[in-house]
């Protein structure tokens, strides 16, 4: 249990799955994140918003070990993740998707998801060499689970053996989601999951995220620009601006926050 103070100053007790303290990321002279404090309550859907270049993706990269914070502390499930490699963090239970889809294009759809399950598999290279019964069983099991996941995210069976790069755009996003889910994450990080989608697809994706959270016992953190999605899906919202925490709170609080309107919504409203 961790105590945090929100902007209004009222103490809250939450069961934090992830907690970031004073996380700072500098690229040379550029400060992409400055002293960001952040808590994700277990089981919630939290959105991270902010104008372009606010440092949202950079923050994700630190949560997944792809970048190491210049200073600050990040704990996941009570353990620090600073200094750990990305694959160790996947093993601890954080899965992610990318803003600009990054699939293994020349692998099949099914193989992409099976790669995602890599950390939950145990076969050794010599086991694979000898084709031990246990290895074959695990391979079959992985394949079955991957097929289930594809079904869960709504990718038709007939796509299984297609090359990932040949999938339509929206389906590529679904595939990335399936790949991330294959590692059985506790925390799922989605970087603009509805970017480039039409309103129909966006609504489907939103429903899918909620459904996955409920069915798979997930905690979700998503970066999103579409305010309708953000307001409709989030239990809490964090706003970053120029790398700094601007506001944190429930959707209705954020909607009413003058600083946010000024920095973010206001700018959009005048467009």
């Amino acid at each position, binding site marked *: 249990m961790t105590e945090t103070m929100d902007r209004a100053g009222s103490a809250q007790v939450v069961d934090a799955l992830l907690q970031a303290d004073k996380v700072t990321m500098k690229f040379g002279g550029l400060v992409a994140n400055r002293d960001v404090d952040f808590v994700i309550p277990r089981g919630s859907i939290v959105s991270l918003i902010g104008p372009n270049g606010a440092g949202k993706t950079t923050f994700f990269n630190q949560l997944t070990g792809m970048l190491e914070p210049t200073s600050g502390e990040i704990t996941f499930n009570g353990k620090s993740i600073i200094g750990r490699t990305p694959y160790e963090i996947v093993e601890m239970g954080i899965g992610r998707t990318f803003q600009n889809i990054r699939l293994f294009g*020349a692998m099949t759809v099914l*193989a992409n998801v099976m790669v995602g399950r890599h*950390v939950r598999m145990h076969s050794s*290279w010599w086991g694979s060499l000898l084709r031990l019964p246990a290895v074959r069983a695990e*391979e079959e099991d992985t394949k079955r689970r991957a097929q289930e996941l594809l079904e869960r995210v709504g990718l038709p069976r007939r796509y299984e053996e297609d090359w990932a790069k040949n999938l339509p755009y929206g389906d590529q996003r679904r595939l990335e989601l399936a790949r991330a889910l294959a590692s059985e994450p506790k925390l799922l990080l989605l970087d603009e999951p509805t970017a480039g989608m039409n309103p129909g697809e966006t609504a489907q994706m939103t429903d899918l995220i909620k459904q996955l959270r409920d069915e798979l016992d997930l905690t979700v953190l998503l970066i999103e620009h579409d305010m309708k999605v953000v307001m409709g899906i989030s239990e809490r919202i964090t706003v970053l601006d120029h790398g700094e925490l601007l506001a944190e709170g429930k959707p209705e609080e954020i909607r009413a926050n003058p600083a946010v309107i000024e920095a973010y919504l206001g700018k959009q409203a005048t467009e």
Partner: protein
Amino acid sequence: MSTLLRRALMMGLFGGIAGVHVSLVGIVNTFQTRDLIADIVTIGSVLPMLIAIMVGWLAGSTPKHIPRPSGSTTLVHGAMAGGVVGVVLAALALLVDSVSLTWILVNARPQLANILYFEQGPGLGSVILIAGGVLLGVAGAGLHLLPRTIARALAISGVVTIIAALMEPFVGAVLRNVELRAIEGFLYQSGGLTVQGFILVFVLIAAGIYGWAKRGDRAKARVAAMPPDRRRAGKLIAYGVLFAILLILPQIVGQRLSEVVGTVGIYILLGLGLNIVVGFAGLLDLGYVAFFAVGAYTTALLTSPASPVLNPELPFWGALPFVIMAAALVGLAVGAPVLRLRGDYLAIVTLGFGEIAREIFKSAWAQPVTGGAQGILSVPEPLPFTRDPQSIYYPILFFCIIAAIAATRLAASRVGRAWNAMREDESVAEATGINTVKYKLLAFSLGAAFGCLSGAFFGTKIGVVFPDSFNILVSINALALIVLGGMGNIAGVMVGALVLVGLPELLREFAEYRLLIYGVVLVVMMILRPEGLLPSRSRRVELHDVSDEDDDDMYTDEAGIDTGRPVVST
């Protein structure tokens, strides 16, 4: 002048220069000794013709951003380009014929002119040369007007027929060996194909390729539709037959060819190992020869009575486990420092490693152990097998089969998927849960094990180990054979070794031009088929936009097994 016409003339000029080059370095003269069709056409005179066809084909192609001109324009461009080749070569012939240049260029003698003139004298000869150039240029450009499958069948069949003619001494010997003199007499005559042999080979191959392109998919679909147990039975029978042939191969092909097959086998082992590192894991290792050398030296040190230190004089098979252990260690030693390097940097550093390895083995400092430049003599035979090509073939075959099975299984496993992902995008692979450090080291170690095994057989096969056997050409050869064969594919490695190691060994008489031909073959391949002869399916997807390709025959899946699934999707 239109862009395309200017392009065609340039192509012609380049072709002409290439023709002058091959003439003056002596290739034309050398190949003059061999007939394509006995007593009618020599291979030497075919070379300029091939250039004209190729140039015509290039002149007839259109770059992506330019709309395709009409058929007749294409042919005219081909004719122009081919004609330019003819004119340039006629000029060369005239020059060589009239002025003696032999004091600068040994090959610039009248005999060359005579070949270029088709032995018809300058007047008629140059007319034939230029008219021939035009016609062949038209033929080359005309390939674009034919349906793609037909054009391809014709082109491949042409190349195969020329190789068939060159192979006369060996194929002839094999046919005599198995008492098929009648066939030999029908196909071959005095160092070349007979007329009927030429037609038969050309037509059969062309028809075979065309038929496969047209019907192959249906055949594959039929196989795929068979019940699994029948399919497995069919596969077993096919492998069984292949295995039986491989078992009696040395007896069929005789002593001389067995020698070549053994060398090819050693390179297949080497290629399978390098394929794990480069083809599967995507780590461009240009110093692979280091592993080959470590294998050969470890074997020599542990087995040879002439070994300067230690000499435990183990039998070959007793030394082998230590060789593999040494390999794994060296794999780790090479892998660990380069873990953080990517792409080009990795290539350059490993290139350095390869050269360092050779220099160390050669150095005076290491002489007490490695024998320095003298190397280590009297490496024993792998008893009960002997050094005889028909005997050592069997252990090499055995290990090639083991290596192929191992590579196939790894490729189809969790490990193969991890390598695949790492090759495509290292940082995403890591963010998806793959320990890239571990998988890089694993690739280096396994690759090293295969390379060392190959080196061990190299050492025992020739019985001596010299540092200079382990030069950079071995690395280049190994890399070139997997690139040509089809990176990431096991069957491709075998085809690559046959073509790049087997053919040159057979054509020793042309050894002088080996690297030149080698280079040309690689350049042509990279233009026409960058993914290699038998690429893995995923490699092909990486290099091509699959959806607008129509030639999806000949492709096999990662492990080299025909799956019969259509490649084109959505």
